[in-house]
């Protein structure tokens, strides 16, 4: 069963009078419970692809089916609903609300999903416990370390039980040890049946995935299984 089915997708940006192709005729399928890394140098189109996969943007041409539903011509509000229910984002810069504590940050997508207070509190607490932040629920982002912030972001991504987790350079702002811990957490999440798409430009991070898609100049250069898959050395909740 394909979760993501992209057919001949292009994304064109208008820069002045020039048309710039960020993606050219890309086709891609991702199955349920896959762990995919998308790699490429800057300007390769990986951010554009990530935005399209995350329903933050729509393609100029081509088809995008998510869970069998065509999202390529959905309205803003429909896309917002898809992002809310089906996609969990993890960003390089964490993107937490600075003035809210961890619990509120994790609870936020559930507010937008219309989940009543008691239930969403319970679910947000559980998600934070799952990423090892039982004692940090009422800390604000600036009272947390980088690794802890990213764990809050991961909890926020998981709390809606989305179909895919979309992580954009999740270790980019972390030291390598903390980065390893986060990758271990992703491995753990993957082992529980989640689908993970990881965007990175670092080989040793990408090797945690089971499949690597390499982009160059808006095209898929290479799409292959990882033979020597790297397994986390550390436990997820260290």
């Amino acid at each position, binding site marked *: 069963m394909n979760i993501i089915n992209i057919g001949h997708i292009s994304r064109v940006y208008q820069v002045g009078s020039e048309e710039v192709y960020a993606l050219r005729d890309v086709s891609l399928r991702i199955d349920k419970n896959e762990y995919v890394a998308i790699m490429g140098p800057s300007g390769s189109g990986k951010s554009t692809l990530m*935005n399209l996969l*995350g329903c*933050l*943007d729509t393609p100029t041409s081509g088809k995008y089916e998510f869970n069998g539903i065509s999202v390529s011509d959905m309205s*803003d*509000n429909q896309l*917002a*609903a898809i*992002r*809310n*229910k089906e996609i969990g*984002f993890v*960003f390089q810069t964490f*993107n*937490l*609300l600075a*003035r*809210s504590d961890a619990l509120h940050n994790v609870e*936020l*997508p559930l*507010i*937008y*999903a*219309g989940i*009543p207070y008691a239930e969403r509190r319970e679910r947000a607490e559980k998600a934070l416990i799952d990423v090892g932040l039982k004692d940090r629920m009422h800390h604000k982002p600036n009272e947390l370390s980088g690794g802890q912030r990213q764990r809050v972001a991961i909890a*926020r991504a998981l709390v*809606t039980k989305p179909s895919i987790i979309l992580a954009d350079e999740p270790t980019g702002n972390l030291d390598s040890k903390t980065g390893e811990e986060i990758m271990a957490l992703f491995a753990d999440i993957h082992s529980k049946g989640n689908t993970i798409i990881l965007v990175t430009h670092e080989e040793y991070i990408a090797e945690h995935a089971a499949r690597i898609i390499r982009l160059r100049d808006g095209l898929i250069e290479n799409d292959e299984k990882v033979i020597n898959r790297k397994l986390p050395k550390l436990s997820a909740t260290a």
Partner: protein
Amino acid sequence: MRALLFEIKESMLIALRAIKANKVRSSLTMLGIIIGVTAVVVMSTAIKGIDNSFQTGMSSLGTDVLYIDKWAWFTNEDWWKLRARRNITMEDYERFKEMATLPSAVAPVINSRQTIKYGDLRVENVFLNGSTADYVKTTNFTFSAGRFYSEIESKSSRNVAVIGSEIAKNLFPRGDALDKTIKIGGVNFQVVGVLAEQGSWLLGNFNPDNQVFIPIGTVFKNFMARSWNSITINVRAPSPALLEETKIEAEGVMRKVRGLTVNDENDFSINQQEGLMETLYSVVGVIQIAGLFITGLSLFVGAIGIMNIMFVSVKERTREIGIRKAIGAKRRTILGQFLLESSSICLMGGLIGLLFAVLLSMLINQFFPTSVQYDAVIIAIVVSLLTGILAGLAPAYTAAKMDPVEALRYE
């Protein structure tokens, strides 16, 4: 419906969080609205106060009464010309009363100002009215004790007095004015009636509750020479609808009484409240418009302040908006969040402004009649909410239509 309520409630909580997070900025913004709402509410209560005291004053005079006088209340004639008119005398009044058929009551009035004493207590500069027993029929007086003086008392010029509520309060704090003997300008008078409170009146320092009524004969006997002063003849029409006819008849009768020929001009004026009301209403109207314009302006400035702050706030929170959109906030959710934020700031400002306005009105009421009405509350809430929504609309819309990709990239 429930989903909508849920969304409003959650947006409200988010908005309150944002206000709390920016306390200084929020309160400075609020200040603009506080000042605006205070000004608008105080202004409208003052206007209401003017209006009320005006109405009370008018109804105590009676809208169906004509005042035949040497002087005109409103005129373009020269003062000296009016001054040259013959005085209106008691004989004029008696002949007028005999000849006029329409009026339901006719009473002569002469005024003076006197000091009134009871024991050690005194009230200075009281407005003294001398008239006949019919005077009460030209008014809408109600009594809190006693009665108006009778025809016999009036005709025989007995020293009896009817006092206004303010005087009763000042001279008889225990409320036992009836049958007491007071001194009016040094002369003993017996109190036969106390008027119910009529409320303060706007015009100058005239206070309808600070009056005394005594038989006209006693005025001439004690306070002024009969021949030197012109009296006023109060004429009450049988109904407000017949006021105009009564006036026409009064003019004819008065011309006969004064012995005027066809070519003579009237040497008297027939005054009525209508003219007074019109003039005063036009003055009050100008005050109202000017006042509301000026106070409205301050509110408008406050609203621009809010709009400005909301634009800054939206710009500053671009990233936050991007995050919220990425995790599933719809356009209307973002719109609602910012609208609720601006209208909450305004509503809080409005309520604080209302509080200030009430306190201020109480203070002003010491010098000038104001009247805080329940509708001031509604004015404050509606005006501040409306300001919040209008000022928040453009910034909130800007926030709502942001592209999440762009917003997330914003540094």
